[in-house]
């Protein structure tokens, strides 16, 4: 089955992640799949490269699972993120949340993807026709005045 919160370097099988959250008391499973998009603001991506600080990334994914459990105690969450080179339409991340009722599944899944973008040490390098850059880094427009991402960090 693999771990509930996992960084992998090979293609993600969506069903494998879904299987981790199937539960007789779940009536709803929300799955968010992040894929590699070809065009962004008129620029063509050739491929992406993802890198992670693997042990900490898995810990932080687990923390997101804990956050979800504290808001929706009956939720079961599994998240797999892929690293390495990804081509157009490849799957970068799969989030699955099962809950008894659908509202919580949607909200928890949304919470997970937002938090991944805030607190999980994974980086994406875009390879364009005219070069490459580390997203969220080269531009250096995003800073953390408090020295760490906000929202639940010190809980």
């Amino acid at each position, binding site marked *: 089955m693999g771990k509930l919160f996992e960084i992998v370097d090979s293609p993600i099988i969506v069903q494998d992640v879904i299987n981790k959250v199937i539960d007789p008391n779940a009536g709803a499973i929300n799955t968010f799949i*992040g894929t590699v998009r070809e065009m962004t603001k008129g620029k063509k991506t050739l491929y992406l490269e*993802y*890198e*992670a*600080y693997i*042990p*900490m*990334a898995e*810990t932080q994914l687990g923390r997101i699972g804990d956050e979800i459990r504290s808001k929706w105690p009956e939720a079961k969450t599994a998240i797999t*993120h892929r690293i390495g080179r990804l081509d157009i339409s490849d799957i*970068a*991340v799969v989030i699955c949340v099962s809950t008894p009722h659908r509202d919580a599944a949607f909200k928890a899944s949304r919470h997970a*993807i937002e938090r*991944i*973008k*805030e*607190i*999980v*040490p*994974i*980086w*994406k*390098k875009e390879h364009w026709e005219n070069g490459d*850059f*580390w*997203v*969220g*880094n*080269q531009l*250096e427009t*995003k*800073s*953390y005045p*408090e*020295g*760490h*991402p906000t929202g639940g*960090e010190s809980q």
Partner: protein
Amino acid sequence: MIEILLFAGLKEKTGQNKITWHEGSLTVGELKEKLSAKVPGLEQIDYVMIAVNEAYAQDDQVINEGDVVALIPPVSGG
């Protein structure tokens, strides 16, 4: 001795994925100042978060012998 791990753009800028630091105990804030002053490519370290032993750390946290520090530039997973 502390180990300092570098990733993504910081690894490329410095040409290193790990720096071994031989000073005694110091705080996260002090380490950032020293790295910024001494390591080419880390001049602008303000936007970087610091993790100590795989957990985000505040500037006043003390780093001890044997700790594993990581420099975490803004993340972009998902």
